[in-house]
């Protein structure tokens, strides 16, 4: 672990260097919502001025840069009674700048499933390895509960991590390529004053978490509340529109589809991210549907986030970013649903 400080001017210079030879994806203000509040997205930028590092959250997570919504897995060609297959997972180098701790934690969770489990995905691994991740500390976002699920700080999974100390950034260097990258601009060693300032920033951030949520023993609680009326209450609201899973930084469920070209000369196999709340998610041949109603599908979404994933990987899948809660047009907020279940148990 290595720490340096870099002035904001030098950091801007560094971003300029990054832009010279890489695609840089960073938080960009794209719209205003109905209240006039800014909406940000992680988008490719061409200059430092397009970047807004002082953003609260983004509508979509950065997942799509590692796990695209739609992805070609292989292409087939048919010719003279024979066939060929082409598989490509070469990824262009990319810099993802300005990710918050929750989203880097999201990547670490995806790593567990897609890079370190029994069947690693070469498509994911290729993008992950070719993406240089720069994280940044930030004030808690409205409705976020990352601290409750242990995702408000991050210890690895990035190359550089910034903490805003006012005139300078304190930079945590986590990889040799991070070290080389940062080495292209002037940096200073961390002084005692910097350390004090860093602690003050971290303290200020921690103090600001207001969401009252305790997920301790949640997996067991979920087991006990399998038949709870809470699932009916929230489940009947659910639009089954998939917006929660589409905006989630860790939802990775998908479907695979084969297509033929109109001239019959080529075919393709492609993957498309799907959502467990969609009506046919658990539908199988013959039309049998294991989760035909909304409340069951919504329930299983929570079970995967806070129970199934914990059993497999010792931590919840959820990073508390509340993008699903923001995206949900009928107001299904995960912290409220979990809170309801906890109150149910106390009755």
């Amino acid at each position, binding site marked *: 672990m290595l720490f340096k400080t870099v002035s904001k001017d030098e950091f801007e210079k560094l971003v300029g260097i990054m832009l010279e030879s890489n695609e840089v994806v960073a938080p960009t203000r794209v719209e205003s919502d*109905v209240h006039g509040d800014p909406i940000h997205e992680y988008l490719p930028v061409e200059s430092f001025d397009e970047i807004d590092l002082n953003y609260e959250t983004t509508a979509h997570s950065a997942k799509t840069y590692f796990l695209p*919504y739609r992805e070609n897995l292989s292409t087939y060609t048919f010719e003279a009674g024979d066939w060929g297959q082409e598989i490509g997972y070469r990824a262009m180098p990319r810099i993802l700048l300005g990710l918050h701790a929750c989203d880097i934690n999201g990547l670490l969770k995806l790593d567990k499933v897609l890079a370190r489990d029994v069947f690693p995905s070469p498509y994911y691994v290729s993008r992950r390895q070719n993406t240089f991740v720069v994280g940044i500390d930030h004030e808690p976002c409205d409705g976020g509960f990352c601290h409750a699920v242990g995702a408000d700080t991050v210890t690895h999974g990035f190359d550089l991590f910034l903490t805003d100390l006012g005139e300078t950034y304190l930079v945590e260097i986590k990889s040799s390529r991070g070290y080389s990258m940062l080495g292209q601009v002037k940096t200073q060693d961390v002084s005692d004053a910097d350390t004090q300032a860093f602690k003050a920033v971290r303290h200020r951030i921690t103090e600001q978490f207001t969401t009252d949520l305790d997920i301790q023993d949640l997996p067991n609680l979920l087991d006990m509340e399998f038949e709870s009326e809470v699932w009916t209450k929230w489940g*009947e609201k*659910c639009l089954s*529109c*998939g917006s929660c899973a*589409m905006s989630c930084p860790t939802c990775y469920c998908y479907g695979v*589809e084969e297509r*033929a070209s109109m*001239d019959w000369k080529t075919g393709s196999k492609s993957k498309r991210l799907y959502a467990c709340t969609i009506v046919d998610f658990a539908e199988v041949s013959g039309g049998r549907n294991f989760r035909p109603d909304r409340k069951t599908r919504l329930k299983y979404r929570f079970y995967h986030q806070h129970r199934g994933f914990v059993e497999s990987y010792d931590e919840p899948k959820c990073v508390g970013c509340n993008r699903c809660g923001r995206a949900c047009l009928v107001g299904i907020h995960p912290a409220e649903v979990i809170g309801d279940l906890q109150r149910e148990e106390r009755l």
Partner: protein
Amino acid sequence: MQYLGIQPKRPKIAVFDFTGCEGCELQLANKEETLVDFLAAVEVVAFREVMTDAGDDYEIALIEGAISRADEEALLRQIRDRAGVVVALGTCACYGGVNRLKNTFDLGEANREVYGDKPKETSEVRAVGDVVEVDLAIPGCPVNKAEVERIVQHVVLDVAFSFPAYPVCVECKQRFNICLVDRGQLCLGPIVQAGCDAPCPTGGRGCWGCRGPARDANVPEYLSALKEKGFGEDEVRERLGFFGAFEGAVG
């Protein structure tokens, strides 16, 4: 041309237009990069918009437009008798479409408004399926040609195809759009069947629901959410009624 060693069928198809703008037919002739192959996959025996020959020996009839006159009804019944497969092509054929707005007026009054003192014979607008049995309904205003191609592939070679069960939101989110409802615009995305790839929201315009209700659409819940967000009842009702696709879906 074979695919996976199998010779595709080459069914005889005919395209017929009833009350509609012919935009769906035009879609069939669009997408030039695959048009030749598309036309090679089937044998077109009648298609007034693109050819002069017209035969009446066909297995598949594509019906564009709604039914709004007695002679249309008679012709449609004749087609139904001849064709093995009848396909409702586009929103007008599937639901009545924009034409269905006429049904909210007095027929005589509508006739006078449009034709003045030269009234035409006209009747209530109906979807094709309200008149004859329909084997397949392809919604869309206009239909999505890429989807039509896949349906044709399904017909000629059993390549797997099914309409998406999910609503437009999935495709809209996958196109990295900012939610239009968050920006204060009315959008029917959460309750409308996808498959269009969300061109309207991507272009900054809320969904008008041309493809009809999504499977298991939670219409009442979404309508109360819209009300809570301040959208007026008239505005929402007008939107839902625009293509006639939500009759029966709204209480």
